[in-house]
């Protein structure tokens, strides 16, 4: 109480001359008002607005962020915690340096790592100089063309230092657009006839739902929930009901959604609309990962075309951008993101079907799940179930990458084995590479050795081995690779992508990486940790993250025995 306080008057006046906290300057306010224009300031558009700022200025300054918060009647921290959650936003505080105008993003996930991503990153940093930012980023969904470096928004496949440098120097920073089936072409090939029939009442919703149930089609994003059953469940809840289409394809090794989007976007849109009609949906949100800039241009264009000249009545469709967060591929985290918040998965129950977007019952689907609706309904459930191998039914789009001659999206019978895929679809292993092991379902689906390469690949068939098919993202590796290194790569991925909400995942993935980086793994401790993560994490990321660890311990013990 009786401390001698020497007060500097200038400092005092400066401090007391302002309200608490960061004051928004009028110039920043004006700039933000200009950027937002007349668009709605509704809170759920926060991420969309952050993109506008990042796109225009190359970063998001604290002043702009504060001005945006003000415009949207948010507090500064509400805007800040969202902006800093997503890796595509560069929040630059006072006194910090904004990033250079151009960023080259080099993927360092499983397949790209196998194909020399680390060396590429190091060499690019050295040779591109300080004027260019080189960033390691997680899977960009082009694993069949590894390694990949994205110059601005322009992906450089099978990248080398030279090929990247060429693009940088040419300043080619936009994504090339693939040759896809346009709206006109799609219509010519009887596109939207089925949808028109539905709207006109020529088809019956109950019948359509039954067809979907009979087809046995299960969610193709990873969770595998039966599609028809989901429609029935959501339709049973009171209106208004919403729909969310998940194109946040982020599981390392997966690129099938991009593949179909770049080929035939309207087939997915029609399937989406039929689902919306059958279930009774008032509004649809499509959530597209931000790394798919080319797909975004396609979708924006085609949605505009569709809305300008709709085949029949359609519910509102809103396209939303992800912002660099794998966790937003988790359905409830995606819903949070559409609501303008951090992508933190929700605790279940209640499930999305009952309480989803904005508190309403929500139908959530992976893009590919609705991509097949038209085919299944037109050709019949039996057409779909007639496919299959080893007593499994249906078709599956496998995204295959790694040490094979023909990586890419291969549509194959469900239940096919790894070996069969390599031999029948991929033209065998790359020269000099022997089949040693594989990821059956992306980084989270576990790792199996070659001598378990004859297991049918489908839902339910891998669970007994501590693995799962997930999004059918298959990564094949050889004797030139080490399972423990690929497992460490996977865990680093999960550590980076963990949303941070719960202890087992947030702390568990970080501690697991520390343990896996040691020459000798503390296997009992890793197993204990894995058990807790599987049992106690809020969502699938934490629950599945230990799979690579358990698989290496179980199926690749030789790698852990001595200094390999």
């Amino acid at each position, binding site marked *: *109480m009786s401390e001698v306080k020497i007060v500097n008057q200038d400092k005092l006046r400066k401090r007391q*001359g302002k309200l608490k906290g960061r004051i928004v300057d009028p110039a920043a306010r004006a700039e933000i008002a200009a950027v937002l224009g007349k668009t709605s300031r509704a809170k759920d558009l926060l991420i969309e607005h952050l993109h506008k700022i990042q796109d225009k200025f190359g970063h998001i300054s604290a002043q702009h962020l504060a001005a945006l918060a003000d415009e949207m009647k948010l*507090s500064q921290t509400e805007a800040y*915690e969202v902006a800093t959650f997503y890796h595509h936003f560069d929040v630059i505080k006072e006194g910090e340096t904004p990033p250079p105008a151009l960023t080259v993003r080099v993927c360092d996930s499983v397949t790209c790592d196998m194909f020399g991503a680390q060396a590429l990153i190091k060499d690019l940093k050295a040779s591109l100089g300080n004027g260019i930012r080189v960033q390691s980023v997680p899977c960009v969904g082009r694993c069949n063309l590894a390694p990949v470096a994205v110059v601005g928004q322009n992906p450089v496949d099978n990248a080398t230092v030279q090929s990247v440098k060429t693009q940088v120097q040419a300043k080619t920073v936009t994504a090339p657009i693939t040759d896809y089936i346009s709206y006109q072409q799609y219509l010519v090939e009887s596109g939207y006839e089925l949808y028109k029939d539905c709207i006109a009442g020529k088809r019956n919703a109950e019948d359509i739902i039954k067809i979907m149930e009979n087809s046995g089609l299960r969610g193709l994003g990873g969770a595998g929930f039966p599609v028809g059953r989901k429609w029935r469940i959501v339709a049973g809840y009171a209106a208004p009901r919403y729909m969310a289409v998940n194109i946040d394809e982020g599981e390392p090794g997966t690129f099938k959604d991009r593949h179909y989007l770049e080929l035939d976007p309207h087939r997915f849109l029609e399937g989406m609309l039929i689902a919306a009609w059958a279930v009774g949906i008032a509004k649809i949100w499509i959530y597209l990962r931000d790394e798919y800039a080319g797909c975004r241009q396609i979708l924006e264009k085609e949605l505009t075309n569709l809305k300008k000249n709709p085949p029949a009545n359609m519910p509102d469709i809103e396209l939303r951008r992800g912002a660099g*967060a794998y966790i937003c591929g988790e359905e409830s985290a995606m819903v949070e993101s559409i609501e303008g918040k951090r992508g933190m998965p929700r605790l279940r129950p209640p499930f999305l079907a009952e309480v989803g977007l904005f508190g309403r019952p929500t139908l959530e689907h992976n893009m590919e799940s609705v991509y097949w609706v038209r085919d299944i309904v037109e050709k019949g459930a039996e057409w779909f179930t007639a496919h299959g191998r080893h007593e499994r039914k249906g078709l599956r789009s496998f995204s295959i990458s790694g040490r094979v001659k023909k990586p890419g999206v291969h549509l194959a019978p469900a239940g096919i084995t790894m070996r069969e895929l390599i031999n029948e679809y991929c033209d065998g292993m790359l020269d000099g590479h022997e089949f040693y092991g594989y990821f059956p379902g992306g980084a989270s689906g576990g790792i199996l050795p070659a001598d378990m390469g004859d297991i049918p690949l489908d839902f339910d068939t891998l669970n007994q081995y501590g693995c799962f098919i997930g999004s059918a993202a298959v990564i094949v590796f050889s004797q030139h690779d080490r399972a423990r290194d690929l497992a460490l790569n996977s865990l680093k991925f999960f550590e980076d992508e963990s949303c941070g909400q719960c202890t087992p995942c*947030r*702390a568990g993935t*970080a501690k697991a990486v520390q343990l896996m980086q040691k020459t000798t793994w503390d296997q009992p401790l890793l197993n204990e*940790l894995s058990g807790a993560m599987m049992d*106690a994490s809020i969502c699938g990321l934490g629950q599945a993250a230990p799979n690579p660890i358990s698989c290496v311990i179980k199926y690749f013990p030789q790698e852990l025995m001595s200094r390999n």
Partner: protein
Amino acid sequence: MNAPINLSNTIAFNLNGNKVEAFEGETILQAAKRNGIEIPHLCYMEGMRPDGNCRSCMVEIKGERVLAPSCCRAPKPDMEVISNNERALASQKIVLELLLADMPKQDYKPDNELTYWAKKLKVSNPRFEPRMSPDADLSNAAIAVNLDACIQCTRCVRACREEQVNDVIGYAFRGEHSEIVFDMGDPMGDSTCVTCGECVQACPTGALAPAKNAAQIVPDKKVDSVCPYCGVGCQLTYHVKDNHIIQVVGRDGPANHGRLCVKGRYGFDYSKHQHRLTTPLIRRKDALKSETYSVDPANPLAAFREATWDEALDFAANGFKKIKAEKGRLALAGFGSAKGSNEEAYLFQKLVRTGFGSNNVDHCTRLCHASSVVALLEGVGSGAVSNPVADVQYSDVIVIIGANPIVNHPVAATFIKNAVKKGAKLILIDPRRTELARLATHYLPFKPDTDVALLNALLHVIVTEGLVDEKFVAERTENYAALKENIQGYSPEVMGPICGIDAETIKQVARLYAKSKASIILWGMGISQHVHGTDNARCLIALSMVTGQVGRRGTGLHPLRGQNNVQGASDVGLIPMSFPDYVRVDNPEAHAKFEKLWGTELDSKPGLTVVEIIDAAVDGKITGMYIEGENPAMSDPNTHHARLGLSRLEHLVVQDIFMTETAYLADVILPASTHAEKLGTFTNTDRLVQIGRPAMTLPGDARQDLWIIQEIGKRLGLDWNYAGPKDVFNEMRLAMPSIAGITWERLESEGAVTYPCEQEGDPGQEVIFEDDFPRPNGRAKLVPADIIHADERPDADYPMVLVTGRMLEHWHTGSMTRRSGVLDAIEPAPIASIHPLDLDAEGAKAGDILTIESRRGSIALIARADDGIPRGSVFIAFCYYEAAANLLTNPALDPFAKIAEVKYCAVRLTKGGDIPTKLGYHSEAAVA
């Protein structure tokens, strides 16, 4: 908030092999706890929405693939739950071990919950490597931030964002990089943090803890009491060591539910300030009084000499007796305290009425809600609120007009914010864009002084669009015809340009208010402190009556009472026109009742009010005053005039805890007790009577206020023998039907009782006017109002408007809070808030010194840029003695309530001036 628990419905389920009953709405964790089974938990805190993120409470539910968080799951009939098998324990322990691995070696507080559970489950010596430790952030004067002890449970986030809704704390970044941030990752002391301390109270590990390790000190005792500051009446617990309060913790009282604000939580140290008066003082003959006379509170002996209590009390009483004999009883007056207890206030007014022999007794309500009370007494027959603040949870529409509760009733504001977040619509009517505007569905920045124009326009819409509750008007009001006639000329189209709100908005707001299922109006000084304050309040009453928005949950009229006991002080008759319980002194029945009760003749003529008494002092008509716990030399309008009046008194007795500006002019000073040193009852804004208990003994020779008043009373010839506050309270019950049913014992055991409570056994009525109004015919009276302008409007010489008010960190005249380390550290210097463009126009910028002058005085302060202040006006709080705002204010009075127009007068601004090099009351502090 948690789902409400329904005690009448139980659910039987199986827990660890045993049959257990859960109440409907309980979670597995809560049911387990109640049945003696402890499941570890960290992110769950009772009273807060459960978040289920720490994952230490995992249990196995039969049939489920993974474990479930017991804090977030409700039991279903026959559910089988196991919390203690190998699988559940394995997860619980790994979670604790993971968290423990990242903790610092030392605990920041003794009751660290992680330490507790780790010990309980025998988890120690973590086998994981620690993370990188963040640095400490000690930038906030009251709160130490040590995030190396953070377990990311987000209890602080929920405390800040969901309970207090101050929206400062965020959970930024992702994964292992996730961190608790303030604003945008700014040091806490530089952020918008208001230091309410809710986060500290919520933090399980002490990552957020009281500064200077205060939480590490083990208290000798804990005393349950109430906060001394505002009318919300938060319940709290003092942690005391060696007769010092070391920490204040929120308690679950009806008005606050555990929440506190920065003043209540951190403003407790003023009691021990070195300026505390500890001996009676008598003025020295050479210390001649004048309106500008001042005393350095650090050196009272420059103007006074010490005296014994007997000498001082005799001197005090004799001075009054002399004046009474020579000049008559009307030459005496008393100002009692709205901060003292009900018992003190009751005795004080009794002393004036039976000892001095007149009704010249008043207190600072005159400067505050006097106009609201007059309008309410006239309109509904009762001067208190109709519904408690907590009723906003039942409201669909909340109107806040002329009030800034975030600053002046912070904890009450949190409940308003909670209601808005749950869907209630907030209509904020205030020329200043205050922080609440962000949450308002409708924000009406009307022009200062145009309240009646706007309110009558709202009435116009309601009447002309058929939105009147005809039944209610017909059955429960009178004089509607006159009101209806009067508002004809007040259409929104005509009033719009006058009040600055467009007609369409006026209509939308009127419709919203009228049509909602439950609308409530809360108001403050913006309504009351005008020469038309009574008219303003009349309009608010009319709005609620014509729409039937009164007499039910979630509706009604709530003038937010400022002082912690201003409601009580008025209730017990510390006002010139009424005896206790608002019966007029010139009412024959009441007069007879009190003559009988007090056994003496009483004056039946209403006495003078605060400003009138000062005027009478200036004129020499009043020559003796007894001022207790009030500081009119700072709080009265037109300070020069007020101090002139006080200096002209022949005999001024000041009873206070500090050498206030009023005490500078005293003839004798009697050192009294602070709130935390006394036992007494205090009535908050909700009509809640609460008990305040002493936590410390008195310093030096300071005495209890109650004892001092009694001693003076005795010396005036009054036969008083009250043993303590309980005796006084019991007499109050005889005097006041409203509290007749409240026993002292009930107050001691329950802590709080709402009045009216007329019979013992009555629970106490929160919502009143359900069936009728306490007026002769049971009906509310509608009183039309017309536009009256402010007394002194801007002109060429004084072109700007001065609005006075308060600040969050400082209380009223600053005598207490300027002497509190934390509070004064946050706001140490006088400031004037002004729109940045108005600053530009003066060629000044934020931080410059401005001189503000009115016809009555001139002060210099630091300019604070605030674009929420309306153009052409300046806002100054009246808490800085270095730049007393009331030197500028206009003592023009509302004719009915005699309240001064401190919310509006004309001033001019110039850049330049000096502020003192020594600020505040830390007399050693120097300015470099």
